[in-house]
Protein backbone atom coordinates (compact mmCIF):
# COMPACT_ATOMS: atom_id res chain seq x y z
CA UNK A 1 0.00 0.00 0.00
CA UNK A 2 3.12 2.18 -0.14
CA UNK A 3 1.77 4.15 -3.10
CA UNK A 4 -1.22 5.38 -1.11
CA UNK A 5 0.76 6.43 1.97
CA UNK A 6 0.47 10.11 2.69
CA UNK A 7 3.25 12.33 3.97
CA UNK A 8 3.45 15.69 5.74
CA UNK A 9 5.51 18.61 4.35
CA UNK A 10 8.23 17.72 6.92
CA UNK A 11 8.57 14.11 5.69
CA UNK A 12 11.89 14.79 3.97
CA UNK A 13 13.25 16.33 7.16
CA UNK A 14 12.24 13.29 9.22
CA UNK A 15 13.82 10.83 6.79
CA UNK A 16 16.94 13.01 6.51
CA UNK A 17 17.31 12.79 10.30
CA UNK A 18 17.15 8.96 10.16
CA UNK A 19 13.91 8.89 12.10
CA UNK A 20 12.36 5.48 12.71
CA UNK A 21 9.20 5.81 10.58
CA UNK A 22 5.81 4.08 10.80
CA UNK A 23 2.32 4.48 9.39
CA UNK A 24 -0.19 6.34 11.52
CA UNK A 25 -3.62 7.42 10.32
CA UNK A 26 -2.53 6.80 6.73
CA UNK A 27 0.62 8.97 7.05
CA UNK A 28 4.28 7.93 7.10
CA UNK A 29 5.30 9.53 10.39
CA UNK A 30 8.36 9.56 12.67
CA UNK A 31 8.14 7.24 15.71
CA UNK A 32 11.38 8.63 17.15
CA UNK A 33 14.59 10.29 16.03
CA UNK A 34 18.14 9.11 16.87
CA UNK A 35 17.91 10.86 20.26
CA UNK A 36 15.38 8.14 21.21
CA UNK A 37 11.81 8.21 22.50
CA UNK A 38 12.85 8.39 26.17
CA UNK A 39 14.95 11.53 25.68
CA UNK A 40 12.14 13.03 23.59
CA UNK A 41 9.52 12.25 26.26
CA UNK A 42 11.71 13.80 28.96
CA UNK A 43 12.45 16.89 26.82
CA UNK A 44 8.75 17.80 26.79
CA UNK A 45 8.78 17.79 30.61
CA UNK A 46 12.09 19.48 31.30
CA UNK A 47 12.68 21.76 28.28
CA UNK A 48 10.76 21.54 25.04
CA UNK A 49 9.70 18.99 22.47
CA UNK A 50 8.65 19.79 18.90
CA UNK A 51 6.18 17.46 17.18
CA UNK A 52 5.12 17.38 13.52
CA UNK A 53 1.33 17.13 13.73
CA UNK A 54 0.49 18.11 10.16
CA UNK A 55 -1.24 14.75 9.72
CA UNK A 56 -4.14 16.14 11.74
CA UNK A 57 -6.98 17.61 9.71
CA UNK A 58 -8.27 21.18 9.84
CA UNK A 59 -11.79 22.22 8.79
CA UNK A 60 -13.08 25.77 8.69
CA UNK A 61 -16.75 26.67 8.96
CA UNK A 62 -18.15 29.98 7.75
CA UNK A 63 -21.54 31.65 7.94
CA UNK A 64 -24.36 32.68 10.25
CA UNK A 65 -25.51 29.08 10.72
CA UNK A 66 -22.22 27.65 11.99
CA UNK A 67 -22.79 28.09 15.70
CA UNK A 68 -26.17 26.42 15.50
CA UNK A 69 -24.71 23.58 13.42
CA UNK A 70 -22.01 23.01 16.04
CA UNK A 71 -24.57 23.15 18.84
CA UNK A 72 -26.50 20.36 17.11
CA UNK A 73 -23.42 18.18 16.52
CA UNK A 74 -20.62 18.92 19.01
CA UNK A 75 -20.73 17.65 22.60
CA UNK A 76 -19.84 20.92 24.32
CA UNK A 77 -22.55 23.53 24.84
CA UNK A 78 -20.92 26.52 23.13
CA UNK A 79 -23.09 28.89 25.20
CA UNK A 80 -21.82 27.38 28.48
CA UNK A 81 -18.28 26.11 28.21
CA UNK A 82 -15.66 28.70 29.17
CA UNK A 83 -14.15 28.97 32.62
CA UNK A 84 -15.58 28.09 36.02
CA UNK A 85 -18.60 30.33 35.38
CA UNK A 86 -19.40 28.50 32.16
CA UNK A 87 -19.47 31.50 29.84
CA UNK A 88 -20.11 31.25 26.09
CA UNK A 89 -17.39 30.40 23.57
CA UNK A 90 -16.04 33.71 22.23
CA UNK A 91 -13.54 34.72 19.56
CA UNK A 92 -10.02 33.71 20.62
CA UNK A 93 -11.12 30.77 22.72
CA UNK A 94 -11.35 27.07 21.89
CA UNK A 95 -12.92 23.98 23.47
CA UNK A 96 -12.33 20.24 23.37
CA UNK A 97 -15.19 17.82 22.79
CA UNK A 98 -16.44 14.94 20.69
CA UNK A 99 -18.72 14.31 17.73
CA UNK A 100 -21.12 11.42 18.35
CA UNK A 101 -23.41 9.50 16.03
CA UNK A 102 -27.08 8.95 16.85
CA UNK A 103 -26.15 5.81 18.85
CA UNK A 104 -23.93 7.89 21.15
CA UNK A 105 -20.76 6.37 19.68
CA UNK A 106 -17.70 8.54 19.04
CA UNK A 107 -16.99 9.55 15.44
CA UNK A 108 -13.96 11.63 16.49
CA UNK A 109 -12.74 14.08 19.09
CA UNK A 110 -11.97 17.67 18.12
CA UNK A 111 -11.06 21.15 19.24
CA UNK A 112 -13.45 23.90 18.09
CA UNK A 113 -11.87 27.35 17.68
CA UNK A 114 -14.03 30.49 17.41
CA UNK A 115 -12.25 32.98 15.12
CA UNK A 116 -15.15 35.44 14.60
CA UNK A 117 -18.93 35.35 15.10
CA UNK A 118 -19.25 33.52 11.80
CA UNK A 119 -15.87 31.83 11.32
CA UNK A 120 -14.84 28.73 13.22
CA UNK A 121 -12.03 26.22 12.87
CA UNK A 122 -12.10 22.54 13.78
CA UNK A 123 -9.07 20.33 14.34
CA UNK A 124 -9.79 16.61 14.07
CA UNK A 125 -7.61 13.52 13.76
CA UNK A 126 -5.59 12.26 10.80
CA UNK A 127 -7.84 11.13 7.93
CA UNK A 128 -10.97 12.40 9.74
CA UNK A 129 -11.31 15.70 7.83
CA UNK A 130 -13.47 14.10 5.14
CA UNK A 131 -15.70 12.04 7.44
CA UNK A 132 -16.35 14.95 9.83
CA UNK A 133 -17.04 17.34 6.93
CA UNK A 134 -19.48 14.79 5.51
CA UNK A 135 -21.13 14.34 8.90
CA UNK A 136 -21.60 18.11 9.27
CA UNK A 137 -22.88 18.52 5.70
CA UNK A 138 -25.41 15.77 6.22
CA UNK A 139 -26.69 17.53 9.32
CA UNK A 140 -26.70 20.84 7.45
CA UNK A 141 -28.75 19.31 4.60
CA UNK A 142 -27.65 21.81 1.99
CA UNK A 143 -28.75 24.89 3.90
CA UNK A 144 -26.54 27.74 2.70
CA UNK A 145 -25.92 29.40 6.08
CA UNK A 146 -22.86 27.32 6.96
CA UNK A 147 -20.05 26.68 4.49
CA UNK A 148 -17.80 23.75 5.43
CA UNK A 149 -14.26 23.70 4.02
CA UNK A 150 -11.97 20.67 4.48
CA UNK A 151 -8.32 21.84 4.60
CA UNK A 152 -6.83 18.34 4.94
CA UNK A 153 -3.12 18.47 3.89
CA UNK A 154 -3.38 22.22 3.31
CA UNK A 155 -2.37 23.45 6.77
CA UNK A 156 1.01 22.96 8.41
CA UNK A 157 0.76 22.13 12.10
CA UNK A 158 3.35 21.49 14.78
CA UNK A 159 3.18 21.26 18.56
CA UNK A 160 5.76 22.98 20.76
CA UNK A 161 5.36 21.47 24.23
CA UNK A 162 7.28 21.86 27.45
CA UNK A 163 8.07 24.42 30.16
CA UNK A 164 10.46 26.35 27.86
CA UNK A 165 7.90 26.64 25.02
CA UNK A 166 6.91 30.29 25.57
CA UNK A 167 10.51 31.45 26.03
CA UNK A 168 11.51 29.74 22.79
CA UNK A 169 8.54 31.08 20.86
CA UNK A 170 9.28 34.60 22.13
CA UNK A 171 12.54 34.56 20.14
CA UNK A 172 10.90 34.04 16.75
CA UNK A 173 7.65 36.07 16.94
CA UNK A 174 7.35 39.68 15.76
CA UNK A 175 5.17 40.74 18.71
CA UNK A 176 5.57 38.22 21.54
CA UNK A 177 4.39 40.49 24.39
CA UNK A 178 1.07 41.02 22.62
CA UNK A 179 0.73 37.35 21.78
CA UNK A 180 1.33 36.06 25.30
CA UNK A 181 -0.72 38.74 27.08
CA UNK A 182 -3.67 37.09 28.82
CA UNK A 183 -3.08 33.90 26.88
CA UNK A 184 -4.88 31.41 29.08
CA UNK A 185 -5.07 27.66 28.56
CA UNK A 186 -7.36 26.91 25.58
CA UNK A 187 -7.06 30.32 23.96
CA UNK A 188 -5.40 31.26 20.69
CA UNK A 189 -4.31 34.21 18.57
CA UNK A 190 -3.48 34.81 14.93
CA UNK A 191 -4.40 32.93 11.77
CA UNK A 192 -2.65 30.63 9.32
CA UNK A 193 -4.66 32.34 6.56
CA UNK A 194 -5.71 35.88 7.58
CA UNK A 195 -7.65 36.42 4.32
CA UNK A 196 -9.94 33.51 5.08
CA UNK A 197 -9.89 33.53 8.89
CA UNK A 198 -9.54 37.10 10.10
CA UNK A 199 -7.47 37.69 13.23
CA UNK A 200 -5.29 40.29 14.89
CA UNK A 201 -1.89 40.22 13.22
CA UNK A 202 0.45 37.58 14.58
CA UNK A 203 3.58 36.87 12.57
CA UNK A 204 7.09 35.53 12.62
CA UNK A 205 9.87 38.13 12.54
CA UNK A 206 9.80 37.98 8.71
CA UNK A 207 6.08 38.72 8.57
CA UNK A 208 4.78 35.18 7.94
CA UNK A 209 1.33 34.83 9.55
CA UNK A 210 0.62 31.94 11.91
CA UNK A 211 -1.85 30.88 14.56
CA UNK A 212 -0.65 30.15 18.09
CA UNK A 213 -2.98 28.08 20.27
CA UNK A 214 -2.25 27.38 23.92
CA UNK A 215 -3.24 23.73 23.68
CA UNK A 216 -1.53 20.41 23.15
CA UNK A 217 -1.63 16.65 23.60
CA UNK A 218 1.03 16.06 26.24
CA UNK A 219 -0.49 17.43 29.45
CA UNK A 220 2.39 19.89 29.54
CA UNK A 221 2.60 23.64 28.99
CA UNK A 222 2.89 24.54 25.32
CA UNK A 223 1.36 25.48 22.04
CA UNK A 224 -0.08 24.13 18.83
CA UNK A 225 1.09 26.21 15.87
CA UNK A 226 -0.72 26.46 12.51
CA UNK A 227 0.94 27.89 9.42
CA UNK A 228 0.65 27.67 5.62
CA UNK A 229 2.40 24.45 4.49
CA UNK A 230 4.98 26.31 2.39
CA UNK A 231 6.30 27.93 5.57
CA UNK A 232 6.29 24.91 7.86
CA UNK A 233 9.90 23.83 7.38
CA UNK A 234 11.07 27.39 8.06
CA UNK A 235 9.08 27.52 11.32
CA UNK A 236 10.31 24.04 12.32
CA UNK A 237 13.97 24.98 11.81
CA UNK A 238 13.54 28.38 13.50
CA UNK A 239 12.13 26.69 16.61
CA UNK A 240 14.81 23.99 16.73
CA UNK A 241 17.51 26.67 16.49
CA UNK A 242 15.82 29.03 18.99
CA UNK A 243 15.30 26.20 21.48
CA UNK A 244 18.87 24.95 21.56
CA UNK A 245 19.71 26.57 24.91
CA UNK A 246 16.81 24.66 26.50
CA UNK A 247 17.70 21.39 24.80
CA UNK A 248 14.70 21.31 22.46
CA UNK A 249 14.27 17.96 20.69
CA UNK A 250 12.22 16.96 17.67
CA UNK A 251 9.82 14.32 19.02
CA UNK A 252 8.11 11.44 17.27
CA UNK A 253 4.78 9.70 17.77
CA UNK A 254 6.15 7.28 20.40
CA UNK A 255 6.87 10.15 22.79
CA UNK A 256 3.57 11.79 21.83
CA UNK A 257 1.73 8.58 22.76
CA UNK A 258 3.54 8.02 26.08
CA UNK A 259 3.15 11.68 27.07
CA UNK A 260 -0.58 11.79 26.32
CA UNK A 261 -1.26 8.47 28.04
CA UNK A 262 0.55 9.61 31.19
CA UNK A 263 -1.51 12.81 31.05
CA UNK A 264 -4.74 10.76 30.92
CA UNK A 265 -5.71 11.94 27.43
CA UNK A 266 -7.56 9.57 25.09
CA UNK A 267 -6.44 8.54 21.61
CA UNK A 268 -9.46 8.71 19.31
CA UNK A 269 -10.37 5.36 17.72
CA UNK A 270 -8.43 3.55 20.45
CA UNK A 271 -9.59 4.83 23.87
CA UNK A 272 -12.79 6.39 22.58
CA UNK A 273 -14.44 5.16 19.43
CA UNK A 274 -17.35 3.22 17.98
CA UNK A 275 -18.95 2.41 21.32
CA UNK A 276 -21.14 4.32 23.78
CA UNK A 277 -19.45 7.44 25.13
CA UNK A 278 -20.29 6.70 28.77
CA UNK A 279 -18.50 5.79 32.01
CA UNK A 280 -15.07 7.11 31.04
CA UNK A 281 -12.65 9.77 32.33
CA UNK A 282 -13.70 12.30 29.67
CA UNK A 283 -17.39 12.89 30.41
CA UNK A 284 -16.51 16.55 31.16
CA UNK A 285 -16.93 17.16 27.42
CA UNK A 286 -20.69 16.62 27.77
CA UNK A 287 -23.01 19.61 28.30
CA UNK A 288 -23.88 18.93 31.95
CA UNK A 289 -26.08 21.30 33.94
CA UNK A 290 -24.74 22.68 37.22
CA UNK A 291 -26.01 19.73 39.21
CA UNK A 292 -24.52 17.26 36.72
CA UNK A 293 -27.92 15.61 36.37
CA UNK A 294 -28.99 16.57 32.84
CA UNK A 295 -27.72 18.17 29.64
CA UNK A 296 -28.19 21.86 28.86
CA UNK A 297 -28.75 21.15 25.15
CA UNK A 298 -29.66 18.38 22.76
CA UNK A 299 -27.13 17.26 20.16
CA UNK A 300 -26.61 14.22 17.94
CA UNK A 301 -26.08 11.28 20.27
CA UNK A 302 -27.27 12.97 23.47
CA UNK A 303 -30.57 11.06 23.58
CA UNK A 304 -28.71 7.75 23.31
CA UNK A 305 -26.42 8.71 26.21
CA UNK A 306 -29.36 9.66 28.43
CA UNK A 307 -31.36 6.49 27.79
CA UNK A 308 -28.47 4.00 27.92
CA UNK A 309 -28.32 1.59 30.83
CA UNK A 310 -25.13 0.30 32.40
CA UNK A 311 -22.25 0.57 29.97
CA UNK A 312 -18.73 -0.85 30.25
CA UNK A 313 -16.30 1.54 31.96
CA UNK A 314 -13.04 2.96 30.65
CA UNK A 315 -10.52 3.54 33.44
CA UNK A 316 -6.94 4.78 33.66
CA UNK A 317 -4.26 2.63 35.26
CA UNK A 318 -0.58 2.69 36.14
CA UNK A 319 1.73 -0.24 36.75
CA UNK A 320 4.65 -0.78 39.10
CA UNK A 321 7.53 -0.94 36.57
CA UNK A 322 8.05 -0.14 32.86
CA UNK A 323 6.85 -3.50 31.53
CA UNK A 324 4.00 -3.43 29.01
CA UNK A 325 1.56 -5.82 27.42
CA UNK A 326 1.38 -5.77 23.63
CA UNK A 327 -2.27 -5.37 22.70
CA UNK A 328 -3.57 -8.19 20.51
CA UNK A 329 -6.55 -10.49 20.12
CA UNK A 330 -5.38 -12.47 23.14
CA UNK A 331 -4.64 -9.55 25.50
CA UNK A 332 -7.11 -8.89 28.30
CA UNK A 333 -7.65 -7.54 31.80
CA UNK A 334 -8.39 -9.96 34.62
CA UNK A 335 -8.86 -9.72 38.37
CA UNK A 336 -6.10 -11.04 40.65
CA UNK A 337 -7.64 -14.53 40.42
CA UNK A 338 -7.54 -14.56 36.62
CA UNK A 339 -11.24 -13.89 35.99
CA UNK A 340 -11.63 -11.84 32.77
CA UNK A 341 -12.81 -8.27 33.33
CA UNK A 342 -12.37 -6.60 29.95
CA UNK A 343 -9.92 -5.35 27.34
CA UNK A 344 -6.78 -3.22 27.25
CA UNK A 345 -7.20 -0.07 25.13
CA UNK A 346 -3.81 1.60 25.61
CA UNK A 347 -0.62 0.23 27.19
CA UNK A 348 2.52 2.32 27.02
CA UNK A 349 5.33 3.44 29.34
CA UNK A 350 5.48 6.96 30.78
CA UNK A 351 9.25 7.21 31.04
CA UNK A 352 9.27 10.31 33.25
CA UNK A 353 7.66 8.73 36.31
CA UNK A 354 8.37 6.12 38.94
CA UNK A 355 6.94 5.00 42.25
CA UNK A 356 8.41 6.37 45.47
CA UNK A 357 6.71 4.41 48.21
CA UNK A 358 3.02 4.46 47.29
CA UNK A 359 3.21 7.72 45.37
CA UNK A 360 3.97 8.30 41.71
CA UNK A 361 6.65 10.96 41.23
CA UNK A 362 7.61 12.69 37.97
CA UNK A 363 10.81 14.41 36.88
CA UNK A 364 8.72 17.60 37.13
CA UNK A 365 7.65 16.96 40.74
CA UNK A 366 9.16 19.59 43.07
CA UNK A 367 11.76 18.27 45.53
CA UNK A 368 9.62 19.44 48.45
CA UNK A 369 6.76 17.35 47.06
CA UNK A 370 8.72 14.11 47.19
CA UNK A 371 11.16 13.94 44.29
CA UNK A 372 14.67 12.88 45.22
CA UNK A 373 17.72 14.45 43.60
CA UNK A 374 19.03 12.93 41.44
CA UNK A 375 15.85 11.22 40.24
CA UNK A 376 16.29 8.60 37.52
CA UNK A 377 12.83 7.14 36.88
CA UNK A 378 12.62 3.73 35.24
CA UNK A 379 9.19 4.57 33.88
CA UNK A 380 5.79 3.05 34.61
CA UNK A 381 3.44 1.18 32.33
CA UNK A 382 0.15 3.07 31.98
CA UNK A 383 -2.90 3.52 29.82
CA UNK A 384 -6.58 2.67 29.75
CA UNK A 385 -8.66 -0.47 30.17
CA UNK A 386 -12.32 -1.04 29.35
CA UNK A 387 -14.03 -3.29 31.89
CA UNK A 388 -17.57 -4.53 32.34
CA UNK A 389 -18.08 -2.79 35.68
CA UNK A 390 -16.67 0.30 37.30
CA UNK A 391 -13.78 -0.48 39.66
CA UNK A 392 -12.85 1.66 42.68
CA UNK A 393 -9.61 3.67 42.50
CA UNK A 394 -6.73 1.65 43.87
CA UNK A 395 -8.13 -1.67 42.63
CA UNK A 396 -5.35 -3.92 41.40
CA UNK A 397 -6.00 -5.81 38.19
CA UNK A 398 -3.83 -7.94 35.92
CA UNK A 399 -3.00 -7.20 32.28
CA UNK A 400 -2.09 -10.24 30.27
CA UNK A 401 -1.23 -11.15 26.69
CA UNK A 402 -2.12 -14.75 27.44
CA UNK A 403 1.46 -15.47 28.50
CA UNK A 404 2.93 -12.81 30.76
CA UNK A 405 0.97 -11.08 33.49
CA UNK A 406 1.43 -7.56 34.81
CA UNK A 407 -0.25 -6.19 37.92
CA UNK A 408 -1.47 -2.60 37.56
CA UNK A 409 -3.52 -0.22 39.69
CA UNK A 410 -6.72 1.61 38.65
CA UNK A 411 -6.09 5.34 39.12
CA UNK A 412 -7.66 8.70 38.34
CA UNK A 413 -4.31 10.39 37.58
CA UNK A 414 -1.09 8.89 36.22
CA UNK A 415 1.71 11.46 35.78
CA UNK A 416 1.59 14.08 38.56
CA UNK A 417 2.68 17.73 38.42
CA UNK A 418 1.75 18.37 34.80
CA UNK A 419 2.29 21.93 33.59
CA UNK A 420 -0.43 22.50 30.94
CA UNK A 421 -2.39 24.95 33.12
CA UNK A 422 0.58 26.84 34.61
CA UNK A 423 -0.05 30.61 34.42
CA UNK A 424 1.61 32.15 31.38
CA UNK A 425 3.42 34.92 33.28
CA UNK A 426 5.46 32.34 35.20
CA UNK A 427 6.61 30.65 31.98
CA UNK A 428 8.11 33.65 30.14
Amino acid sequence: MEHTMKTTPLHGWHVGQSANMATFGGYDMPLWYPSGAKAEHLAALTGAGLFDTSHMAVLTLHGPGVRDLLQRTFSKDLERCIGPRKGPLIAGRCVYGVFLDTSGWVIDDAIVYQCTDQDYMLVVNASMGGPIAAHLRQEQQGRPDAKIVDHTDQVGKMDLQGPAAARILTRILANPEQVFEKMVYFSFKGSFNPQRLPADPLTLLDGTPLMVSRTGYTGEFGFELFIAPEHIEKLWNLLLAAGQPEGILACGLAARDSLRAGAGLPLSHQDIGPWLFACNPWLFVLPWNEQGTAFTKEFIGSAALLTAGNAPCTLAYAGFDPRKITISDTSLVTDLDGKPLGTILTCTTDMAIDRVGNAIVSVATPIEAGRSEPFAPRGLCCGFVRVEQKLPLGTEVVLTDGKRKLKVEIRDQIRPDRTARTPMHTML
Partner: protein
Amino acid sequence: MKELEELHLPDDVRYTDEHEWARVTGDTVRIGVSDYAQDQLGDIVFVELPAIGDSFAKGDEFGTLESVKAVSELYMPMSGEVVAVNTALTDSPELINQQPYDAWIIEIKPADRSEYDQLFSAAAYLDLLKG
Protein backbone atom coordinates in the same frame (compact mmCIF):
# COMPACT_ATOMS: atom_id res chain seq x y z
CA MET B 1 16.66 4.18 11.61
CA LYS B 2 20.07 2.99 10.51
CA GLU B 3 20.75 2.09 6.91
CA LEU B 4 22.01 -1.49 6.55
CA GLU B 5 25.52 -0.25 5.74
CA GLU B 6 25.51 1.79 8.97
CA LEU B 7 24.94 -1.29 11.14
CA HIS B 8 27.75 -2.48 13.36
CA LEU B 9 28.08 -6.24 12.76
CA PRO B 10 31.31 -7.46 14.36
CA ASP B 11 32.94 -10.71 13.25
CA ASP B 12 33.71 -12.05 16.74
CA VAL B 13 30.07 -13.03 17.33
CA ARG B 14 27.57 -15.16 15.43
CA TYR B 15 23.96 -14.24 14.76
CA THR B 16 20.46 -15.73 14.63
CA ASP B 17 17.53 -14.87 12.42
CA GLU B 18 15.82 -13.56 15.59
CA HIS B 19 18.66 -11.00 15.89
CA GLU B 20 20.45 -12.43 18.92
CA TRP B 21 24.23 -12.80 18.91
CA ALA B 22 26.44 -15.40 20.63
CA ARG B 23 30.11 -15.03 21.56
CA VAL B 24 32.33 -17.86 22.78
CA THR B 25 34.38 -16.88 25.83
CA GLY B 26 36.34 -19.92 26.98
CA ASP B 27 33.93 -22.62 28.16
CA THR B 28 30.91 -20.36 28.15
CA VAL B 29 28.90 -18.40 25.60
CA ARG B 30 27.54 -14.89 26.10
CA ILE B 31 24.31 -13.90 24.40
CA GLY B 32 22.99 -10.47 23.45
CA VAL B 33 21.03 -8.73 20.69
CA SER B 34 22.37 -7.19 17.48
CA ASP B 35 22.75 -3.55 16.53
CA TYR B 36 19.89 -4.10 14.07
CA ALA B 37 17.62 -5.34 16.88
CA GLN B 38 18.34 -2.43 19.22
CA ASP B 39 17.92 0.08 16.38
CA GLN B 40 14.55 -1.39 15.38
CA LEU B 41 13.28 -1.58 18.96
CA GLY B 42 14.30 1.91 20.02
CA ASP B 43 14.98 2.77 23.65
CA ILE B 44 15.08 -0.38 25.78
CA VAL B 45 13.41 0.38 29.09
CA PHE B 46 13.36 -3.00 30.83
CA VAL B 47 15.06 -6.38 30.53
CA GLU B 48 13.48 -9.51 31.95
CA LEU B 49 16.27 -11.93 32.82
CA PRO B 50 16.08 -15.67 33.57
CA ALA B 51 17.43 -17.15 36.80
CA ILE B 52 20.92 -18.57 37.07
CA GLY B 53 20.62 -22.34 36.76
CA ASP B 54 17.72 -22.23 34.27
CA SER B 55 18.25 -24.53 31.31
CA PHE B 56 16.88 -23.85 27.85
CA ALA B 57 16.91 -25.60 24.51
CA LYS B 58 17.97 -23.82 21.35
CA GLY B 59 15.08 -21.60 20.22
CA ASP B 60 13.46 -21.41 23.67
CA GLU B 61 12.38 -18.03 24.99
CA PHE B 62 14.72 -17.04 27.85
CA GLY B 63 13.60 -13.47 28.60
CA THR B 64 12.09 -10.33 27.16
CA LEU B 65 13.24 -6.90 26.09
CA GLU B 66 10.84 -4.09 26.75
CA SER B 67 11.31 -1.17 24.39
CA VAL B 68 9.28 1.97 23.89
CA LYS B 69 7.77 0.25 20.88
CA ALA B 70 6.93 -3.26 22.05
CA VAL B 71 7.70 -6.28 24.14
CA SER B 72 10.12 -8.60 22.36
CA GLU B 73 10.94 -12.16 23.30
CA LEU B 74 14.56 -13.28 23.48
CA TYR B 75 15.36 -16.70 22.04
CA MET B 76 18.27 -19.03 22.81
CA PRO B 77 20.78 -19.20 19.94
CA MET B 78 22.13 -22.40 21.51
CA SER B 79 21.01 -24.89 24.14
CA GLY B 80 22.52 -24.60 27.58
CA GLU B 81 22.35 -23.65 31.24
CA VAL B 82 22.40 -20.04 32.42
CA VAL B 83 25.53 -19.49 34.52
CA ALA B 84 25.38 -15.68 34.72
CA VAL B 85 23.02 -12.82 33.96
CA ASN B 86 24.07 -9.23 33.32
CA THR B 87 22.54 -7.49 36.34
CA ALA B 88 23.87 -4.11 35.14
CA LEU B 89 20.95 -4.17 32.68
CA THR B 90 18.44 -4.07 35.52
CA ASP B 91 19.34 -0.49 36.36
CA SER B 92 20.67 0.52 32.95
CA PRO B 93 18.74 -1.27 30.18
CA GLU B 94 19.87 1.50 27.81
CA LEU B 95 23.33 -0.14 27.72
CA ILE B 96 21.87 -2.44 25.07
CA ASN B 97 21.16 0.58 22.87
CA GLN B 98 24.51 2.17 23.59
CA GLN B 99 26.82 -0.86 23.25
CA PRO B 100 24.86 -3.83 21.94
CA TYR B 101 27.89 -6.14 21.75
CA ASP B 102 29.28 -5.27 25.20
CA ALA B 103 25.88 -5.42 26.86
CA TRP B 104 25.57 -9.19 26.99
CA ILE B 105 22.31 -10.42 28.53
CA ILE B 106 23.06 -13.95 29.71
CA GLU B 107 26.04 -16.27 29.84
CA ILE B 108 25.42 -19.97 29.28
CA LYS B 109 27.30 -23.21 29.54
CA PRO B 110 26.47 -24.68 26.13
CA ALA B 111 25.02 -28.17 25.93
CA ASP B 112 26.27 -28.69 22.39
CA ARG B 113 29.16 -26.54 21.25
CA SER B 114 28.56 -27.46 17.61
CA GLU B 115 25.33 -25.40 17.63
CA TYR B 116 27.56 -22.31 17.53
CA ASP B 117 28.87 -23.27 14.12
CA GLN B 118 25.32 -23.39 12.77
CA LEU B 119 24.75 -19.69 13.55
CA PHE B 120 25.11 -16.95 10.92
CA SER B 121 28.42 -15.23 10.29
CA ALA B 122 28.31 -11.42 10.10
CA ALA B 123 28.29 -11.59 6.29
CA ALA B 124 25.51 -14.19 6.22
CA TYR B 125 23.49 -12.19 8.77
CA LEU B 126 23.84 -9.04 6.66
CA ASP B 127 22.61 -11.00 3.63
CA LEU B 128 19.62 -12.10 5.70
CA LEU B 129 18.85 -8.48 6.64
CA LYS B 130 19.10 -7.45 3.01
CA GLY B 131 16.40 -10.03 2.31
